[in-house]
């Protein structure tokens, strides 16, 4: 198992800033979506739909750097970037960022940081969805939704995370393998 060196630390930070920059353009999309869904009382759905984009830095960093803690650090740094540059949610951004990172880290940790393939990414998506949903139950009162609506929110969240953190991450990793940046034995 590798340890952290300055090069990896700089890499994960630059990656987090890159992701932050790319996702910055989705800010208006979120607002529009939330505003459109709000009158019907469905505003949380906007959050669930786009959550996958925001938690993507975690699985991506975990998959590429492969050092224990990289998914957590990648996602947490993304939150730090967001907090200092334009984000308004402050302290809660940091807490959510850390939890999202730990959520996706769990997926990699459960497979012992050895298998880098579909199974790990799917597991990581599931753990991220569970951890972040638990936090929203406490923080945003999701626990007091009716069971059906709560299930809908969870399924949408899981699908969004699986699409961005799972499918898209795997496609990116495939490109990196073809460019010989990542070892091809990634399975």
């Amino acid at each position, binding site marked *: 198992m590798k340890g952290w060196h*300055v090069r990896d630390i700089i890499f994960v930070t630059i990656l987090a800033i890159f992701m932050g*920059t790319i996702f910055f353009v*989705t800010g208006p999309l979120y607002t529009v979506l939330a505003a459109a869904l709000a009158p019907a009382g469905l*505003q949380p759905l906007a959050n669930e739909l786009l959550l996958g984009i925001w938690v993507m830095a975690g699985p991506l960093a975990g998959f590429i750097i492969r050092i224990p803690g990289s998914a957590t650090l990648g996602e947490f740094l993304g939150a730090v970037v967001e907090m200092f540059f334009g984000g308004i949610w402050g302290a809660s951004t940091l807490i959510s960022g850390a939890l999202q990172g730990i959520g996706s880290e769990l997926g990699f940790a459960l497979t012992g940081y050895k298998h880098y393939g579909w199974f790990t990414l799917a597991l990581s998506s599931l753990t991220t969805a569970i951890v972040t949903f638990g936090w929203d139950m406490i923080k945003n009162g999701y626990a007091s939704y009716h069971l059906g609506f709560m299930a809908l929110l969870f399924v949408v969240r899981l699908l969004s995370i699986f699409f961005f953190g799972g499918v898209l991450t795997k496609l990116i990793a495939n490109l990196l393998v073809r*460019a010989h940046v990542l070892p091809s034995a990634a399975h």
Partner: protein
Amino acid sequence: MNPTLKLALVLIIALEISFTQVWTVNVVLLVVCFILMIAYRVKIKRLLWLTLVPLFFATALVWSLSLQGSASAHFLIVIFTRMFVYVYMGGVFTQTTEPLMLTRSLEQNAKLPSKFAYGFLAAFNLMPKIRTEVATIRAAALMRGQVLHVWSPQLYFKVILVAMNWSDQLASAMASHGFVEGAPRTHAVRVPLPTWNWWACAVSLLAVQLGLFLGLP
């Protein structure tokens, strides 16, 4: 106030109000934060932004909770005010803290290994370059008739290659300037941690505890 201590205080209070349901404490906290922001001369535009955005999201969430859920009125008020506390506390913190001072303080006061502190700083200073690079990658693709979306793997692929390249170069540059991982360092700028900071932190926390657990609504 010392940046590390301030960050810890903000995080602890944010965590505590997430797990408790006392709206009076929320209101007191947001009034205090509002006064602090005025005292630190936060711009009116920023203040307005920090108020209107959570106003929209808090209203939408409360509306959604009352339509799709079975929350009590008390809980709705708690959720509504809680969102403002997060935003206002974050506002006080980011408007009074420089990222550079925070990193220095984390290294000196919180004993964060210097490789992390300087690694973060090196990358953060690339911020403007990173913004330009994303625009460049998009424009270069457009010239070939390729539109890169948020869901295009190619966009991330290129970004990752650039990040690898830059981190290699920055790490070698730091090494060639004499940065040795784990070596003892001296500090050009000392971040003070005076005793009154500890007192201020302790008193604020105590006040919050009293408010939360004294049976206020």
